[in-house]
């Protein structure tokens, strides 16, 4: 019946290659489906001569900006579209013809996504029927068989009815058994319903060889091993971008030609043309945005400089306003001003940072407190706007109250017009290894081992070696495949998450611009683009971030005001340039203050000796991976010791580097140097900056390096200096810290230092009430406060509030003791604190039963308070309190009638008290645990922390203490930093990898760690370099770990 017909040769070079446009292709933003990224797809499509390429991710436009970039790079037209599977099983692709169609597509995706839980969507036929014009529809009938014939007729009828003249029947053939018959049947179906047929590829990868990764993705999606994925896998690799010659053999010419007809209708649309407008309602009637911004700025300036605005600042303001006007960013500044104004009206402390934030305009608008009069250098350049880049303003708010700000924004603009930016969560090697390993059928146990091998704490050891160390046979097929697949999957997007605080606000509903979907958190919506996408599309984002120290500072300011002290309602009200504060900072007496409290920061303070605000700006930025890896720290410290006249600058760089003594420390400086020494334009520098943020994804400095070398050579710089600059840029990598952010942080660092210096009790009290935050646990904060001579009192139900409080001391005016709050006792709720305080306010507690009844305490709460020693006034010692609290029965009214026998109970020993204190609130005022075993320690030749103060540099000693911090920073090449605490102070220990390896268990597990090592004490920087570690925890049984480990 069928004529004998052999298959045509596959690689016939003479076969005609018709023009073709691919109308149905998924990128890796169809998560766990598309196995190639937009760049790969476009490069391949360009190589094989396609006329256009549609990116049609499933119910998503989250990959479309990357597709746009790829399209521009490859110079191949992009068709914007999306694929949908309706609830009844119908599969469609919608392609955008024009602006109106794009808006409709965004609306449809938003509709489907908002209806379903995060990661899913739900759409019905009626939703498709309601679409206005501007879209082409491809119906994908899928494989045909007799049983589905009526279904297909019905669907074809529906499509034809609702989308006449703009609907096609997509024929997708992938070398199935009956392609010919299927083609024939589909054509008949098309004729019956007057639907033109068009060829399409259902592309899931750019090359056939991505088949393995595509199979892995399918397995990940199904959450089973590939070997069990069965028919969910594609039977072959045909879903790649096939050569046009190949397509010509599969599809009749008219179907291929038809792709060009569809493409011609859709390639006219340019997504860059979407019309983003900033909200206008902030401007009062009868005024325009520029005028209103000017009015607010000068009004603010008048309060900032009551004696009159300095002349040079007026000039500056005028220049800035002009730039803002050129870019038409007035509305953006007004929005930020509005948010900040709201925060201030609620007394929520906030602080702006970022290049635009440090403008005079922002200072006048109250967005930042960084006073331009203090450091004029920063305002030489109003950097970002001159570079044609969206203004960068991040605003930090008190972490406990940021939600109020977010809800204000949502409420003010409505959910239609405000949403958070997305963050694309991408695979990293570790997560990729887990997923690939699971797909390849490895056991959970092996997956754990894989994660370890792939976790990045291993420096430069090749992965094959690490796998071998973990017992894997890297010669095995599975492992060889795994290593390759992990590299392929690494960096691919996995899902969308919400940005930490980046808002996008629009004048028109957001879904006119970009689809909106549900976030994992209730009451949050996110747009489908991330911050890079927003930058490309020139959408403005306001970052509303949460900062714990602002919470602390507000609480401190309020407390101080309540106690009758100064009123520092704004950070700017705190006196600047206070010598006592700087002396404290130089002595590294900075436990608890913002930023400069970490081990690394503290060890730098005595060397850098910050003496003014700008020194702090440097201090904040210099102890960062960028400057450390770029080798900037030591040169800078050396130059600080020199007189200014002896510092030599390479020609041209002096203006850029003078403020940091010739050593580049800030990201902005690196950019500026390139403009001076390598003739980069501002735009090119910015391109470099952006690529730095994504070097992992886009592959390093290579693209720029030849130009830098060539131009610097032409400009007469030595190869050594050139290399130094390149190393520095390289070292900055993605860790470069901008001066504009450092300036904001330094202000908060100074303010918190000032508060600690002059009001230590107030500061510590506020800090304890803002926990958890910062580097230190309450025990260290309290110990530090006591070392500063402030009395600390234990938690007590007859005196403590939920929060910590200050109790005025009777004899000396304005001196206070810190009363620990009930919040320090683990396991209790704030609600209980409220009940206790309220009941106590009525009338003092008669006894424990009275307290329990009036504060409505359950058994757990009673016993917890008893164990914490907080009942001592009512019940006596802990044993007594515990006996009484556990004797109170649920039937409270009867209690009064029960005459309990009171057996004599043994009072707790000091050791028991200390241990109980640690178990309930992590610190003890009675004694330090080490003082309890000091004799034993002395017999083991252990020296106290205080003895070490006077120990000579280089001495070999033994010290032991409670481990309070373990840290292994990525920048420290495997060194672990451990902080030990005894009854006399803290000692910093440096553990090199060799010692860490040899004494691993002690390092990881010890609560009480003993260290044999060499004492180093240079320039006021002291630490103990470990040679051997011993776990002495057995000396303090029952003392739980107090350490904050490895953050």
């Amino acid at each position, binding site marked *: 019946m*069928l004529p*004998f*017909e*052999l*298959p045509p*040769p*596959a*690689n016939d070079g003479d076969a005609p290659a018709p023009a073709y446009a691919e109308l149905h292709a998924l990128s890796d933003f169809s998560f766990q489906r598309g196995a190639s990224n937009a760049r790969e797809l476009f490069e391949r499509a360009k190589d094989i001569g396609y006329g256009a390429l549609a990116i049609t991710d499933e119910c998503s436009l989250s990959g479309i900006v990357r597709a746009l970039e790829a399209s521009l790079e490859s110079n191949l037209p992009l068709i914007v579209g999306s694929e949908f599977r309706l609830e009844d099983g119908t599969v469609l692709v919608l392609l955008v013809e024009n602006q109106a169609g794009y808006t409709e597509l965004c609306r449809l995706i938003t509709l489907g996504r908002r209806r379903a839980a995060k990661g899913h969507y739900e759409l019905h036929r009626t939703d498709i029927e309601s679409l206005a014009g501007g879209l082409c529809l491809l119906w994908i009938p899928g*494989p045909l068989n007799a049983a589905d014939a009526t279904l297909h007729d019905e669907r074809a009828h529906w499509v034809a009815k609702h989308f006449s003249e703009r609907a096609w029947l997509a024929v997708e053939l*992938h*070398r199935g*058994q*009956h392609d*010919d*018959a299927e083609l024939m049947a589909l054509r008949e179906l098309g004729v019956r319903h007057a639907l033109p047929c068009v060829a399409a590829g259902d592309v899931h990868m750019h090359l*056939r060889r991505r*088949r*393995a990764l595509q*199979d892995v993705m399918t397995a990940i999606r199904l959450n089973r091993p*590939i*070997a069990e*994925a*069965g*028919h969910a*896998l594609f*039977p*072959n*690799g045909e879903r790649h971008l096939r050569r046009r010659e190949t397509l010509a053999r599969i599809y009749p010419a008219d179907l291929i030609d038809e792709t060009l007809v569809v493409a011609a209708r859709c390639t006219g649309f340019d997504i860059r043309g979407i019309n983003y407008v900033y909200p206008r309602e902030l401007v009062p009637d009868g005024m325009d945005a520029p005028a209103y911004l000017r009015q607010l700025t000068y009004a603010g300036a008048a309060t900032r400089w009551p004696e009159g605005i300095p002349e040079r600042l007026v000039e500056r303001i005028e220049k800035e306003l002009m730039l803002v006007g050129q870019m038409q960013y007035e509305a953006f500044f007004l929005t930020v001003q509005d948010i900040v104004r709201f925060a201030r009206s609620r007394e929520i402390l906030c602080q702006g940072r970022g290049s635009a934030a440090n403008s005079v305009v922002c200072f006048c608008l109250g967005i930042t407190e960084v006073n331009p009069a203090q450091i004029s250098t920063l305002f030489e350049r109003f950097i970002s706007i001159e570079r044609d880049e969206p203004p960068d303003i991040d605003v930090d708010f008190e972490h406990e109250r940021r939600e109020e700000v977010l809800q204000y924004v949502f409420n003010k603009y409505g959910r239609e017009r405000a949403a958070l930016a997305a963050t694309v969560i991408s695979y990293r090697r570790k997560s990729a290894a887990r997923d690939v390993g699971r797909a*390849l059928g490895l056991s959970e*146990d092996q997956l*754990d*081992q894989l994660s*370890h091998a792939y976790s990045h704490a291993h420096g430069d050891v090749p992965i094959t070696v690490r796998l071998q*160390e*973990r*017992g894997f046979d890297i010669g095995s*097929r*599975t492992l060889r*495949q795994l290593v390759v697949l992990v590299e392929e999957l690494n960096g691919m997007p996995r899902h969308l998450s919400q940005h930490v605080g980046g808002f996008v606000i629009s004048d028109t509903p957001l879904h006119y611009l970009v689809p909106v979907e549900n976030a994992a958190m209730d009451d949050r919506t996110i747009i489908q683009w991330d911050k890079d996408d927003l930058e490309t599309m020139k959408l403005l984002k306001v970052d509303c971030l949460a900062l714990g120290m602002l919470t602390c500072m507000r609480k401190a300011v309020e407390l101080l005001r309540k106690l009758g002290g100064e009123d520092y309602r704004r950070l700017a009200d705190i006196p600047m340039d206070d010598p006592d504060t700087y002396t404290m900072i130089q002595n590294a007496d900075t436990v608890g203050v913002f930023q400069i409290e970490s081990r690394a920061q503290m060890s730098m303070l005595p060397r850098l000796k910050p003496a003014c605000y700008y020194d702090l700006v440097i201090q904040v930025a210099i102890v960062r991976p960028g400057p450390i890896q770029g080798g900037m720290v030591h040169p800078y410290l050396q130059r600080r010791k020199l007189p200014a006249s002896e510092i030599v600058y390479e020609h041209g760089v002096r203006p850029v580097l003078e403020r940091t003594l010739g050593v580049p420390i800030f990201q902005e400086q690196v950019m500026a140097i390139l403009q001076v020494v390598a003739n980069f334009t501002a735009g090119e520098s910015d391109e470099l900056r952006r690529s730095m943020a994504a070097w992992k994804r886009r592959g390093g400095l290579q693209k720029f390096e030849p130009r830098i070398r060539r131009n610097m050579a032409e400009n007469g710089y030595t190869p050594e200096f050139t290399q130094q600059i390149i190393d520095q840029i390289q070292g900055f990598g993605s860790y470069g810290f901008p001066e504009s952010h450092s300036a904001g942080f330094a202000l908060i660092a100074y303010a918190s230092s000032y508060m600690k210096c002059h009001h230590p009790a107030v500061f510590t009290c506020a800090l304890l009430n803002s926990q958890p935050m910062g580097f230190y646990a309450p025990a260290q904060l309290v110990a530090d406060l006591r070392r500063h001579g402030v009395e600390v009192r234990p938690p007590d139900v007859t005196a403590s509030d939920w929060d910590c409080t200050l109790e005025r001391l009777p004899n000396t005016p304005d001196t206070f003791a810190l009363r620990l709050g009930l919040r320090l006792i683990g396991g209790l709720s704030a609600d209980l604190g409220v009940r206790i305080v309220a009941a106590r306010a009525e009338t003092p507690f008669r006894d424990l039963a009275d307290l329990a009844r009036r504060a409505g305490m359950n058994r757990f709460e009673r*016993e917890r308070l*008893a*164990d914490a020693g907080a009942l001592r006034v009512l019940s006596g010692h*802990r*044993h007594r309190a*515990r*006996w009484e609290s*556990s*004797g109170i*029965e649920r039937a409270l009214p009867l209690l009064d009638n029960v005459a309990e*026998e009171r*057996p004599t*109970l*043994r*009072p*707790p020993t000091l050791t028991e008290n200390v241990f*109980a204190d640690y178990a309930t609130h992590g610190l003890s005022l009675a004694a330090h645990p080490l003082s309890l075993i000091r004799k034993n320690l002395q017999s083991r030749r252990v020296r106290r922390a205080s003895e070490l103060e006077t120990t000579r540099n280089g001495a070999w000693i033994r010290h032991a203490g409670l481990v309070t911090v373990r840290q292994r920073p990525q920048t420290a090449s495997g060194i672990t930093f451990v902080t030990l605490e005894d009854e006399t102070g803290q000692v910093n220990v440096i553990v090199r990898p060799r010692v860490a390896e040899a004494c*691993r*268990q002690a390092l*990881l*597990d010890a609560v009480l760690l003993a260290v044999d090592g060499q004492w180093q004490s240079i320039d006021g920087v002291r630490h103990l370099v470990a040679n051997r570690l011993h776990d002495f925890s057995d000396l303090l049984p029952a003392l739980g770990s107090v350490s904050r480990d490895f953050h």
Partner: protein
Amino acid sequence: MLWACLRFPGLAFSAAFAATPEAGPSALLDGHARQRLIAAANEEAAAFGVRRGQSVAAARALCPALDVRPRDRDAETRLLAGIAAWCYQFSGHVSLAPPQAILMEVGASLRLFDGWPVLAERLRSGLLEQGHPHTLAATPFAAASWIFAASEDGMVLPEREGVLRMLAALPLTRSGLSASMVKSLQAMGFRRLEDIFRLPRPELTRRIGRDGVAWLDRIRGQSAHALPAWQPPASFLQRIEFDSELDGSQPLLFPLRRLTRELANLLAARDGGVQRFTLTLEHARGQSTRIVVAMAAPQREAERLFELARTRLERTTLPAPARAIELVAEELPVFRPPLRDLFEPVRGDGLDWPTLDERLRARLGDAALRQIALVADHRPERAMRYGTPGPVVSLPRRRRPLWLLPRPMPMRPDPVAVLAGPERIESGWWDGADARRDYYIVRTVEGQQAWAYLPPGTLDGWMLHGWFA
């Protein structure tokens, strides 16, 4: 009354390692799925510093070669019941005290076994022979025996006064009270049982509840303690899953010995025998090998049962490594001498399938009888397997031949017509059998319909893979 308590501290460990003897450092894991910690470690592991309470990661850091197994509570219960079966010969009242203890009333048996020292010796040697390290104590009160078995191995206190004296000095942590009660009492400053024995009863009850006070009564023999008596079950079913696949019959002997030993224990307890039991070895992909061990007469000796099973197992060719072993004995007849040969000729009609199946296997061998199952795999040769068919998987809508050649062979002469195709199949890179072929339905010169393939992109080299018979 004299209650002996046997405690098996290593029981959880043995149960988890029932499949293969632990070789090298090994440890047991317990806890929630999210945070599983080391619950026990063998001596070799302990020598590396592996300790109870460590995370797997921490333990592996100390000892990379550590073999860890999760705790298997079902296996523990079965193991404990197996030991109870063995103990049944010494006492008519044996009671399980999970997770790791057995209580038995031995007062009534003392005379039968010539007094406690002899009985204790027989218990101990019998248990050690079976590989169960244990501790043992006996007092008139079951609860007190349970306590002392944990802390005072070998203690026998036939008199009440002695028990009370010993109890008084016991730290609360060993009192058998729940951990939360002990913590609570310690928080009030109490350390030993005597501290709370002297407390007024209503006040104490209010603090540790009726259960706690009742326990204190029970250990002092102040209230009766009704212990459920264990009864030997009517059939035997035990299964051991292996962590890794065991290849060949040799490694299977260890679990097999364990299973036959358990079976013998049960038979001893029932005073019965077994005439027929089934060993099932499970392989990958749901395949399994079934070995029927039938005897001319009921047997009960552990060694004999093991030998019988071993011979049968060693004669069987296993198609694949085994993942689990199961022993089932449905009928446990009264032990009596054999009356007739099991394999005597039977009348042809009215057989049920298992009997027919067994008869065929007996003559043809296990390998001769098989079933065919579907596998969801695009590769034709992998789309089926021999083994027990599972639920029907999705069928791709493609035509497939009823006959598949065991392996494709060159097709001579070339087909005369292509009826359908090509159907391209590219799949299977993950297991080393990556296929890449274009399949066609073709007609031969004789009018046969065949399923044949070509490598993609070629015109000749037809390979025949099936017949549309």
